Structure formats: structure tokens, C-alpha cells
């Protein structure tokens, strides 16, 4: 006699059919396309060992590229944080002609292929470009320097901050502002001490997303960066360089370091959201 009702079941019983085939296919396809290739990368980098990874990371050219990628991604995410907040606030709170159009265009960096963004940014900021001409007159060089990388990273990161903060601004309760004003707060005090705190988790999430995207960005950067070794090379470019030299171990090492950075960013995002749900009841 089999006590079926006592048997442990993987899923809660349901009259809806198709669990086996859809769940099985999902696992199969996920493993085939994503998990197995990524596991191969991890396995190959584990063969190098920690000392092997460290040896590659401390090659002067690789170390310079990792530093460039990391510091410029932070800087770009920070600039996106500030301007993203202003853009999100303006698009949500104020009414002005063309607001809908500007709002739709915030997603442009998601939709525009990175190679297109790359060549058009390079054309804009090159010494003979639309902006480059005027910047050259005041002695500022953007294309083919680290500033060029920064511009490209600001471009691709902006929607992450705006789209994460926007829904939270829309949900802010007007009563809180009224209460704050009634209790005698200046508008600036209300903004800083009443409206800003609930936005902090979303701002941090947007910052982390923009940062994570910037770390891995390739297409929009390489055209404007000039790719000068030790100065304006980014880490993803060095993976390509190593591959062209058939240095698979080197490419694998840089890739696993970048993967580690983006997983830490992902973890931080999840922690912020868990904290935010506890503290504010929303993400």
C-alpha cells in the first residue's frame, strides 16, 4: 500500500497540464544556452587557479584596463545618478511641451545598437565633429581619451537610473509633502528630508545597474576610446585582444574577473531591494 498523499512532491498539485514538458524544456534550454557555457568559463578559470588569475590581472596592461573600466564605470554611474534623478523628476512631476517625446527617448540607449551609438558618439566628439570643434577651441579633447569612454558610459547607463526611479517618484504621496509644508518645512527641507529618503533604494539600484552595464560595455566605447594601451583601453577590449593573440587563458582570466564584478553588483542590487522592501514596502 502506497501512501501517495504522504509522498513528497516537487510541485503543488494542479489541474493545469504541461508542467513536465515546459519545466523540462526550460531547464534543458537554460542549461544548454546559458549554464553550460558559463560553467565552461568558470571551469577553465579554475584551472588557472587563484595565482593564475592574479598573474593575468597584475599584467600592467590588464591592470590598467581593469582600473580604467572600474573607475570610469563608477564615475559614469554617478553622473547618471544625478542627471537621471533630475530627468526622472522633471518627466514625472512637471508638464511641458514634448514631455511624452522626451520620456519615450529615455529608452534610446536600450534600443540603439551599441555599434551605432559608438560611431555616432565618435563622430560628435571627434576634433572635427559637431561638439568636438567647439571643445577643441577651449582645449578639451574628448574623443580618443578617457573622457570619451566616460561619455559613452554615461549614454548607455542613463535609462537604468531614470526607469528605476521614475515609478517611485510617481508613487510618492502628496500628503507627506503637504504635512511637511504644514509643519513649517522649507521646500528644500521637504525635498531633502521627506521626498529623497524613499527614493534612495531606487537610486542605489539604478546606480548599481548603470555601473554593472558600464563594466561590460564594449560596442559604444571602442570607437570613441581610441584604445591606447595603458590609457584608454577597457577590460572587454582586452578580452578581444587576448583572443586575437590566441591567449585563451588570459581572455578567460579577464572574463572571470569581470563576471565576478557583475555578480557582486547583482548581489548588491538584490540586497538593496530586500532592504528596501523591509524598510519602505516597495522596491
Amino acid at each position, binding site marked *: 500500500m502506497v501512501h501517495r498523499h504522504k509522498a513528497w512532491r516537487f*510541485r503543488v498539485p*494542479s489541474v*493545469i*497540464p504541461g*508542467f513536465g*514538458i*515546459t519545466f523540462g524544456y*526550460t531547464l534543458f534550454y537554460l542549461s544548454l*544556452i*546559458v*549554464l553550460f*557555457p*558559463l560553467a*565552461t*568559463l568558470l571551469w*577553465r578559470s579554475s584551472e588557472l587557479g587563484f595565482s593564475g588569475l592574479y598573474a593575468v590581472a597584475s599584467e600592467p596592461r590588464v591592470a590598467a584596463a581593469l582600473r580604467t573600466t572600474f573607475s570610469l564605470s563608477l564615475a559614469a554611474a554617478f553622473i547618471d545618478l544625478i542627471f537621471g534623478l533630475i*530627468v526622472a*523628476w522633471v518627466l514625472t512631476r*512637471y508638464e*511641458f511641451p514634448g514631455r511624452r517625446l*522626451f520620456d*519615450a527617448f*529615455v*529608452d534610446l540607449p536600450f*534600443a*540603439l*545598437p*551599441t*555599434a*551605432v*551609438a559608438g*560611431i*555616432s*558618439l565618435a*563622430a560628435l566628439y571627434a576634433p572635427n565633429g*559637431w561638439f568636438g570643434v567647439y571643445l577643441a577651441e577651449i582645449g578639451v579633447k574628448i574623443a580618443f581619451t578617457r573622457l570619451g569612454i566616460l561619455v559613452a558610459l554615461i549614454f548607455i547607463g*542613463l535609462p537604468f537610473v531614470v*526607469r528605476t526611479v521614475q*515609478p517611485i517618484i510617481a508613487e510618492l504621496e502628496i500628503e507627506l509633502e*503637504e504635512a511637511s*509644508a*504644514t509643519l513649517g518645512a522649507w*521646500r528644500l527641507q521637504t525635498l531633502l528630508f521627506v521626498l529623497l529618503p524613499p527614493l534612495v533604494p531606487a537610486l542605489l539600484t539604478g546606480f548599481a545597474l548603470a555601473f*554593472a552595464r558600464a563594466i*561590460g*560595455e*564594449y*560596442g559604444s566605447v571602442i*570607437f570613441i576610446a581610441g584604445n591606447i594601451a595603458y590609457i584608454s583601453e577597457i577590460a*572587454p577590449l582586452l*578580452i*578581444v585582444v587576448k*583572443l586575437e593573440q590566441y591567449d*585563451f587563458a588570459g581572455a*578567460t582570466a579577464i*572574463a572571470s574577473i*569581470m*563576471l565576478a564584478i557583475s555578480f557582486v553588483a*547583482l548581489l548588491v542590487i538584490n540586497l538593496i531591494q530586500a532592504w528596501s522592501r523591509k524598510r519602505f514596502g516597495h*522596491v
Partner: protein
Amino acid sequence: MSDILIASTQKKQSPRLRGATEDTAFARALLILIAILFLLLFLFAPLAVVFVEASAKGFSAFLDTFHEADALAAIRLTLIVAAISVPANLIFGLSAAWAIAKFSFPGKSLLITLIDLPFSVSPVVSGLVYVLVFGAQGLFGKWFSAHGTQIIFAVPGIVLATIFVTFPFVARELIPLMQEQGTVEEEAALTLGASGLRTFWTVTIPNIKWGLLYGVLLCNARAMGEFGAVSVVSGHIRGLTNTIPLQVEILYNEYNSVAAFAMAVLLASLALVTLGLKTFLEWKYADALSGRSRRH
């Protein structure tokens, strides 16, 4: 009516007594100005320059780009790659969303995180992992080349890398949407005697069609525009393994600016159409799309 009344009384009062939750006209104008300038500088200018540079030497020079055999081959390859990778991820997205949203089982949130994983991986790394698996030095590289099939530096590698980078688009759109909708309608259909497949086609699909379209739209835009991942696995063989973005790179590096931007116009137009349709769907069918904040 009362709003107008309040507004008109406010106007007569001194500026210090304006609405407590309003910013001053100056602050408002300043912030709007900063936001618009920033968006014009960082978003509109890069888009505009594509079209201007493409037509720098006139319309016929622009059109000449598309008489080149390599350009046509690149367009054809891009269409082929999208035609394989988008349906593949569509079927996966439907399947994953069905399993995750209609049933409850342990480890669900881990599964969702794993599905989102490709978005956190650098495009270059996405290409690299396939080189490590299928490349000449890779895990199965020897086996495949012994059987006369080349994956890396050939079309299959490009398709695989594209599938990887567009993997989550449809699934992440459908999962929250189908979770919101629950299982009540499907259960009703099944109770009334409909088969599983019939329930899916006549109950589930109509409920999710706009979300599905939204996911496919974004998936297709990325599939046609992917550069980094495809660049690593393609080998850049002219006329054979160059997609439109790779052709843009080659032309640009050859200082053939007009042709590079002419090819870029195709992709920029695709981006504009995608943005337009996306905005339309969000505006018209907001209720039929999942309410989760949209990030990619």
C-alpha cells in the same frame, strides 16, 4: 471646477503662499532646462548625427552603400540570425513562463534569477564562452571540426551568441504578467472540458498577446543590433559572417564614413520603430502589460 477656483485664488496671493507642494517657477524652469539640455546632448545628438553623416555626400551616395554585395550579405545574415534566435527565445519564454507562473514549486526565484543571468554578462564574455565551448581550442571544437561542422567564425556561432544575449527578453516580460493573471481562467476552461492546448491558445494567448509582442519587439531589436558578442564569434569574414553592426564597424574603420552611417541608419531606424511601437504599447495597453518596472 474647484481646481480652477484654487488656481485663480492662488494667483492673487503673494508668491510665498503658493501651493505647499510646488517648486518655484524658477526652480521648475531650471530643472526642465537641465533635463532637456542633457537629453538633447546625450540622446538626441547621437541619433541625429547618424542621419546627417549618412547623407553627408547626398542621397545617391547613401543609396550606393546598398548596391554593395557585402552590405546585402550583411543585411541578409542579420535577418537570418534574427529569424532563428527570436522564435527560439519566444518558445523558451512561453515555456518558462507557463512552468513558473502556472505552477508552484521550490527554487522558483533561483530559476528566475538564472533566466535573467545573460543580462548581467558582458557581451564580449557572452561571445567568449561559446569560443571556449566550440572554438578550435574549445571543449567540443575538435569533435565538431572532425565532423565537418564549424560553429565559431561561422553562422551557428553568431546565432548561438545572439540567442544568449537576447535570452531573457520574452521570458522576463511574460513571467510577471502571467503570475499576475493567475490560473483561474485556465482552470475554468479545463473544467468546462477544453484540452490543455486549446486552453493555451484560446485563453492564455489572448491574455498575454500584448506582453508577448512587447517582449518579441525588444528581443528582435537586440538580436539585430548585437555587436560585442557577435563580434567575438564571427571572425569578420566579409560577405559571410558579417552582420549589419559588424559591417558598420568595418566600414567605419576603413574611413568609409558615409557607408558606415548608411548601414547605421538601418539600425537606427529599427531602434526608432521599436521605441515607437514600445511607447504605443505602453500607452495603449498599459493594463495588458505587466506592471513591473521596465528595465533591460
